[in-house]
């Protein structure tokens, strides 16, 4: 192989990355347009699109036509925010999963591993049981705000326990995370035990569901997720290098301790933001990064965007199933992600004969 061939191969790969991102983006758009047409109230797909386009500035003027206000409310105020919530929660969980698996160099890591989920559950349980009211710009967001704040506090606690003079050893962080996680889940169990009727609500929240997601919830989580994912992407190359091991990464000029702090903070922020509006949705953050790694390889510069897009697509599909499969009731989406995600994941592992997934 001479240099021009090598260059060609190398830049061909960059082109392939672009194609992957474009294809996944198109798939995501298709998934969204498909998901908004599904629901208990029958609205023809074409009408659905008309309603949406009509409400996009400028573009809306091109489409005339009347539609009843009730349909407009269903599409714009119920379905669309929920589908978009699924998208951003999927993005956040998948990206946080990639980051934590890379940072901990542990294929079993997921966004909840350093006890974000236990902290959020505790916050949500407190809010639900004791009716703690928190408002934000005039809206009442007791559950998400309590979940968010206590989740962040929990990670901060874990981090400060694990910290030593030289920095934060990742293995210590993992172990402290597991310990704090069990402790908080025990407290949450006590609260649930004494909560009486609210017990059902807490259970539903802990299974994960997007049923309450309206525009306000989307607006609450979106800024954190956009900023967090953007910051993480900026450090994609450093995440590649840390896979060589911390000491070797340091020799290549990576400021390891700073990287760990920024990555943990960003991953925590986006996970907490997602969890605060959706509850604990499992398996997306664990499995999507692995599927993406199998499909596009280990380089974080492509792994992060493709995981994000795949996470959004998969969670929208799972949520669509969750809200239609036992109509008129709903299943928590966390159950669907587990029921479908696990067998698919096992299939992928089996299909790939090489023992290395990672």
């Amino acid at each position, binding site marked *: 192989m001479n240099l021009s061939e090598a260059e060609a191969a190398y830049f061909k790969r960059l082109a392939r990355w672009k194609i992957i991102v474009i294809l996944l983006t198109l798939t995501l758009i298709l998934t969204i347009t498909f998901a908004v047409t599904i629901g208990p109230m029958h609205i023809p797909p074409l009408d659905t699109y008309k309603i949406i386009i009509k409400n996009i500035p400028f573009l809306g003027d091109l489409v005339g036509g009347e539609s009843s206000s009730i349909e407009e409310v269903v599409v714009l105020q119920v379905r669309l925010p929920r589908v978009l919530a699924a998208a951003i929660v999927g993005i956040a969980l998948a990206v946080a999963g990639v980051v934590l698996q890379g940072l901990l160099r542990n294929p079993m890591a997921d966004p909840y591993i350093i006890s974000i989920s236990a902290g959020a559950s505790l916050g949500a349980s407190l809010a639900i049981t004791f009716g703690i009211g928190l408002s934000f710009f005039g809206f009442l967001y007791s559950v998400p705000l309590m979940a968010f704040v206590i989740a962040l506090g929990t990670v901060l606690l874990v981090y400060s326990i694990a910290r030593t003079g030289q920095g934060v050893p990742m293995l210590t962080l993992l172990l402290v995370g597991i310990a704090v996680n069990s402790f908080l889940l025990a407290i949450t169990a006590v609260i649930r035990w004494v909560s009486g009727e609210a017990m059902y609500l807490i259970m539903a929240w802990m299974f994960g569901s997007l049923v309450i997601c309206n525009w306000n919830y989307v607006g609450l989580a979106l800024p954190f997720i956009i900023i967090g994912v953007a910051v993480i992407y900026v450090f994609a190359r450093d995440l*590649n290098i840390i896979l*060589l091991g911390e000491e070797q990464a340091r020799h290549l000029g990576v400021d390891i301790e700073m990287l760990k702090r920024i990555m943990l903070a960003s991953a925590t922020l986006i996970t907490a933001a997602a969890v605060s509006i959706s509850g604990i949705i499992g398996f997306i953050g664990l499995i999507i990064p692995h599927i993406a790694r199998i499909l596009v390889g280990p380089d974080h510069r492509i792994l992060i965007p493709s995981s994000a897009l795949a996470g959004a697509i998969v969670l929208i599909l799972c949520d669509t199933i969750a809200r239609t499969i036992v109509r008129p009731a709903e299943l928590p989406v966390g159950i669907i992600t587990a029921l479908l995600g696990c067998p698919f994941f096992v299939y992928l592992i089996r299909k790939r004969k090489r023992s290395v997934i990672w």
Partner: protein
Amino acid sequence: MVTLRISGIDCYYGSIKALDNVTFSAREGEVVGILGPNGSGKTTLLRAVSRTLKPRVGTVFLDDINIYDIKSREVAKKVAVVPQETTATFDFTALDIVLMGRNPYIDRFRMESREDLAIAKRVMELTHTWHFAERPVNELSGGEKQLVAIARALTQEPKVLLLDEPTTHLDISHQIEIMDLLRKVCKEKKLVVLAVFHDFNLAARYCDSVMLLSNGSVFSIGLTGEVLNGENIKRVFHVEMIVRRHPITDSLYVIPLSISRSKIAPSKDMIVHMICGHGAGAPLMKLLLEHGYGVTAGVLSTLDPDHDAACTLDIPAVSEAPFSPITEENHKANLAMIDGAKVIVVSNVPFGYGNLKNLEAAKAALERGKTTVIVEETPIQQRDFTNGKAQGLFKELKSKGAITVESCKEALSIIKALKNSA
């Protein structure tokens, strides 16, 4: 001119002092080996130079720049590290890994450029890794992975290359390949190469200078030939070593001996005197020492391998100038030594006019009532270069009661039996 200067560094792990006042400097084009027992601070020294472990006292200068004063990215452009082993548990290709070496040069928001790719290719051709550039690194063999690690370090375009036992996990042909490569790169690219070794022979062959560490401080430092001597190695490692210059490679080679004389004190009342030469006596010398016997030898030419062995094993011996017949004076000295011994062993030596006197000494020993053992692995007819004189003496020895055996082991068991009966 690149100079690496380490000035009086003390390094600690917590409260444990790992390096104590280590000072040295190395110049470009120089391969410096770091040797020492486990826990002597070799790896710690590399960590201090790679800006991984900040010394509490002293610092590391590269061209008069204190590496602890500049950013880690800047250090990564000057100092590269090859680890002992790369645990590649992921699917990056060899080229991906090598390109990671360009990290300190690439801005956060940029991808690798054509120039980076060209540098990676040049280095990979140099390290013979280019033909598997596209292969996943976890499918490569240990030797190939290590070559990739070296390529990655070289794409950093460093001035200093640090290696921590770079060949420990590799087979002999890869060891030689990698060390030849490193030496070549060091000279051509004018690098300072600082490498930790466990293998004396590799260090002796490839290092210009050597630092011997002991308990965190420098025991000895200087040119390889000066530092690597039996005495130094014995004092640092507490193992007996034979250090020689090899006639073909002209480098030092080091062979550890299994015994440590400091542990077994040789017996004073069971001394065996060896009439040997031509390397025939050395194995029995070692065996006897290991079994706790006192050993003497004579007369030996100073160029004889047995003379070397006697010196290395601290065996008293009567020596003679090379290529000269045994003088009367040395013969007498030999007889005096025989008087001090209980048993005389005549090794499987060829006899010429030069060493015939040694057989006469054996005869004298028999006449004085000493037990004499003849080791005859090869019949005397085949190693007699004295027109039958040696054979004649042999016959006499045997008729006067010398015991003939066929191997060193047999000789040892006879000597053991003698000791037990006495």
